[in-house]
């Protein structure tokens, strides 16, 4: 059972890193308190994981046949990578970390399912593209709707505030549904957990990460990366939630970090203004490339050590 600890660690690191993508803009534009945001995030992550978290588990566990030790090593490696990135205050993809780790183990064992990998790689490209498209459609559409409502300054504020909260909750739900597979998906393949147990444990550990260590990355996303007005923030989060949820239904774990960057780029295209601070964006892009590579290396080393000091 100690092997499950790496899953809990992974969930915690995911929660601490990815909550920022959901509530970062809302918290730092002071539309919602940090405390309220992380509590809502935790609750909806668990609900999402329990209700729709099963899909991605099959995809991930299909990449490489997992043993109890390889599952432990992959999860621990991914968790270490994401935690490292959280310490560096970079929003990164836990999916990439997990896939990097699984491939690291696959290389060591000489068995990687490349057809499954293609599905994951396509999803990584499709995620930011999907949110760009969603933003390009939603921004003018919802804007036209709001204009017909002829809102005064107070009503407009109220609608946007609740819009951001609801979009955030939906985002948290989508995060739970989509990303729980990264946390405990491997254990279902090894038979250590049932799908429901994996969803419950994964969801809870993600929630724990959101509650305890999410502020650092939230500062990067909300303060240093994105300069959005409340309406832009609402559309960005809603588009992200929509796309991540869609991938959860399809059963492919994707990155909320990539999704939110796509949203912000979409708004940048529409408004023709600089909504992203380039320096911070470059740091994040570095994080994206580094994440699977570092996770792969960690997984390789951890799994190799396990094989040497076998605890079979």
């Amino acid at each position, binding site marked *: 059972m100690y092997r499950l600890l790496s899953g809990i660690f992974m969930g915690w690191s995911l929660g601490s890193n990815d909550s920022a993508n959901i509530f970062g803009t809302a918290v730092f*534009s002071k539309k919602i308190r940090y405390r309220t945001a992380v509590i809502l995030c935790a609750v909806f992550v668990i609900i999402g994981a329990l209700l729709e978290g099963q899909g991605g588990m099959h995809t991930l566990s299909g990449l490489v046949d997992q043993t109890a030790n390889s599952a432990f090593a992959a999860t621990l490696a991914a968790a270490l990578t994401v935690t490292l990135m959280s310490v560096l205050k970079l929003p990164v993809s836990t999916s990439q970390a997990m896939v990097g780790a699984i491939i690291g183990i696959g290389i060591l064992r000489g068995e990687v399912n490349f057809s499954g990998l293609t599905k994951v790689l396509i999803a990584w490209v499709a995620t930011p593209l999907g949110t760009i498209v969603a933003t390009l459609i939603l921004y003018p559409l919802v804007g036209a709707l709001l204009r017909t409502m*002829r809102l*005064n*300054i*107070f009503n407009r504020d*109220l609608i946007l505030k609740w819009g951001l909260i609801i979009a955030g909750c939906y985002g948290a739900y989508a995060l739970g549904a989509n990303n729980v597979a990264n946390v405990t998906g491997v254990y279902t393949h090894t038979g250590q957990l049932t799908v429901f147990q994996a969803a419950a444990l994964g969801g809870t550990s993600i929630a724990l990460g959101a509650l305890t260590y999410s502020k650092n990355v939230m500062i990067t996303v909300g303060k240093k990366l994105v300069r959005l*007005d409340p*309406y832009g923030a609402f559309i960005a989060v809603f588009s992200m939630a929509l796309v991540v949820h869609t991938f959860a239904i399809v059963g492919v774990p994707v990155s909320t970090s990539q999704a939110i960057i796509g949203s912000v780029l979409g708004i940048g295209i529409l408004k023709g203004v600089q909504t992203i601070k380039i320096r911070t964006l470059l740091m994040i892009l570095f994080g994206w490339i580094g994440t699977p590579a570092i996770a792969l290396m960690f997984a390789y080393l951890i799994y190799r050590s396990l094989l040497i000091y076998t605890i079979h």
Partner: protein
Amino acid sequence: MLWNKEKSIIDKIKAYLDQVDRCRNRFRVSIEKLVLEPGNEENQAIVEEVHRSESKADDLRRTIELQLYERALIPESRGDVLGLLETMDAIPGMFQSLCYQLLLEKITFPEQFRERFLHLVDVNVKSYDLVREAVLGLFYSKDVKAQTDLVDAAESDSDHMERDLIRDIFSSKLDKADKMLLKDIVVYTGDISDQAETVKDRLILAIVKRKI
């Protein structure tokens, strides 16, 4: 319940603007008395009325500010509304100051300038009326573009009248000290429409920021 909270603030803003209106009405009556009957003993009392209505408007504005800080609006909008109210609040302050200036400095407008000066006052009061309607539009979802254009026009009219009046004052045979005093009064009166224009600028900025 949430709607009630916002509605209560809108009602208070409306009450504040109504109070500024009362101040405006008293100002208009006082100015006429001060210009047409400079030595009248009743003038002190009517100027005090302008002062009282200005104070009440101030109190109402403070109540709104507290309520805004305590429980309403997101910070960005709060800043816009507070800025707008504070800029607006300078106008009743100017109504009051102008009355006191005429009263305390015992300024007597020569006959030939009285009518033109009162006309200048009317144009400046009109600029307040226009900007007041525009500000209210922000809280009652009205299109304020036409209103803000009229504020600009009133300010421009006031500028022309102000310059003509000053030129004629200095072309007259009045004592130099009197000319300076009258010029100050004319310039200060024109400042009302300048302030109305500042309010209008803030209003437009608040609207543009929210444009989707």
